[in-house]
Structure formats: C-alpha cells, structure tokens
C-alpha cells in the first residue's frame, strides 16, 4: 500500500516537472525553428566551401589555421595523405603551399621526425574548410587583444 502510494506520488511529480519544463523552454530558439517534433522543416541548402586561397586571421594564437580551399575527395588514409602532397616540407617548393608547422614533425617528447608525426596525420581533426553559410547564432567570442584593450581603457 505504502509502495503503491509512493509510486503514484512519484509519477505525479514527474508529470508536473515535465509539463513545467516544456512550457519553460517553449520560447527558446532551437535549430528546429519551433517545428513540431513529428514534422520536418525544409532543409537549408548546402553551403559552398570557400575556395579563394586567402589566409584568414586566427582568432587566437593557438588556433589551427582554417583551410581556404576545397578538399572534396582528398584522401587521408593508410595509403596516402593528399594534403601532404602539397604541404609537406619536401613538396612546398613545387606547390608553393605553406608548410605544415614544425610542431607537426615532432613527437610528443619534442624529438624531430623526418616525416609528419602520426599523431598529426589526420589534418581534418584540427583544420577545417570554411563555407559561405550565414552563422546560425551570433558569435560572441572576444579576441584577447580586444579584451586587453578594454581593460587598459578601464585602467586609465
């Protein structure tokens, strides 16, 4: 009897909780754009990959540089690494592409290797192509230079 009561109480409480949270999040913007769960909104067109070969500023010093060209069908696997056919040390003279940074030739103990380090082999783990898609949400990232500037201003 006691157990059954407890069970009913629990389910009632959780029901209240679910309904309240549902109403609370109704006005939150989602990628579904308010479409009901059982309905599908038309998908947005696939954005074009930027292919202008213009270097972009890095948002912070350690940011892996983004790829300013298309990489469709570039193979990076056991057999070959297409990226390195231009960006490796011995290929840059002919390709005139930027060489991958020297850190990519180091193992984790800082020893230099002749070839790219296996832990850096999969370029796309850090480097990504950019598209011309409009950002879905506003970016509020503040670069450290701007942070320092505002701080200097407030100090003066």
């Amino acid at each position, binding site marked *: 009897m006691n157990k059954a009561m407890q069970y009913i109480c629990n389910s009632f409480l959780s029901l209240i909780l679910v309904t309240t949270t549902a109403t609370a999040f109704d006005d939150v913007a989602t990628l579904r754009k308010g479409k009901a769960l059982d309905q599908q909104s038309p998908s947005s067109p696939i954005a074009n990959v930027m292919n202008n070969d213009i270097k972009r500023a890095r948002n912070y010093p350690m940011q892996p540089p983004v790829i300013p060209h298309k990489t469709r069908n570039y193979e990076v696997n056991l057999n*070959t690494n297409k990226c390195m056919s231009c960006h490796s040390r011995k290929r840059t003279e002919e390709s005139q592409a930027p060489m991958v940074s020297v850190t990519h030739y180091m193992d984790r103990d800082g020893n230099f290797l002749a070839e790219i380090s296996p832990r850096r082999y999969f370029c796309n783990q850090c480097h990504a192509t950019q598209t011309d898609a409009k950002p879905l949400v506003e970016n509020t990232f503040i670069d450290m230079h701007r942070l320092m500037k505002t701080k200097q201003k407030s100090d003066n």
Partner: protein
Amino acid sequence: MKKIISIGWQTLKKPSAYFSLGFLVIGGFIMGIIFWGGFNTALEATNTEQFCISCHEMEDNVYEEMKTTIHFSNRSGVRATCPDCHVPHKWTDKIARKMQASKEVWGKIFGTINTREKFLAHRKRLAQNEWTRLKANDSLECRNCHNFDYMDFTAQSGRAAQQHSTSLASGDKTCIDCHKGIAHQLPDMKGVEGW
C-alpha cells in the same frame, strides 16, 4: 600437314565452277556487312559500363569508389562511364587496347583479383598501368572531354588557373600528373612522383 595446306591453296586458287559471279560478289558484300557489323556491335557491347561491372571485381571495387566522385554525380548530370576514360576512342587505338584487354580475361578466369584482399594487393600495379598509359598519351582520355583550348581560366579558382596556365599550357605536365585518384581511391603512394 604440307599436303593439307596444298589442297586448301589449290581449292582457293581455282575459279568457282558452280556459283555465279553475281552470287559471289553480292553474297560476299552482304556477308561482309554482317560480319563487320557483328564484329563492331560485339566490340561496342564490351565497351559499356554494364559490361565492365558485370564482373564483381569491377562492380565491388572500382565502381563503388567512383560513385562518390564528381565523374559520377555532379550538378549538370554529365557523367563518365568506364570506357570513356579507360578505352581510347580512336578505332586503331581502341583495337590495340582491346587486344591488351585479353590479358584481363585471363585474369578473370584465374581469379587474379577475385577477392578484396587480392585487389588491394594488386592495386598499386593496376593504378600504375593506367598512370603510365595516360602519361604516354598525354592524358588523351581526359582531353576527349576536357579540351585545353576551351578552358576559361577566369572561371577557375586562382590556384587551378595558375597551374593550368603554366605547367599544363607548356606541356610540361599532363592531367594525370596532378589528378591521380580523380575517380578512384589511391593505392599506397609511397615512392610515387609528386607525393
């Protein structure tokens, strides 16, 4: 043996005793059309993608890989089929390639690449065959569609225009030098020039 050849030659040498000249001329003409037409029809039948992928070696390996590339699916719906790139279009070259292909029939019968593992083991050799062929004929099969004279460099990306207007224009490089693996996955590229 010598006697048989001699009898055969004597028969051919003798004028026809039973058939009229008209029958021989017209009959020969009609048979010529049938044989020649038949030969070419059969040749063209082996020159289709349907024929190529009727072997699982082709369908499961190279054809599957090609499906993801731009030569299979693209915005304008123009696509290349196997013989567009792998068989020369000019008649004499085509016959020469078809005669070489008799070796592929041998490979099929004896199962040279009848499993995925065997195919992968042979992949570099097979790819190199094609690279050598395309290098030797100045990427003729690419140029059947991609005509250098009509390339609009302004419509290309900066990097592409730069490469095409220098190395390709001067004949220093040919398509396959840079576009290896354009329609199929690459083999182990160790030791390949430019990699």
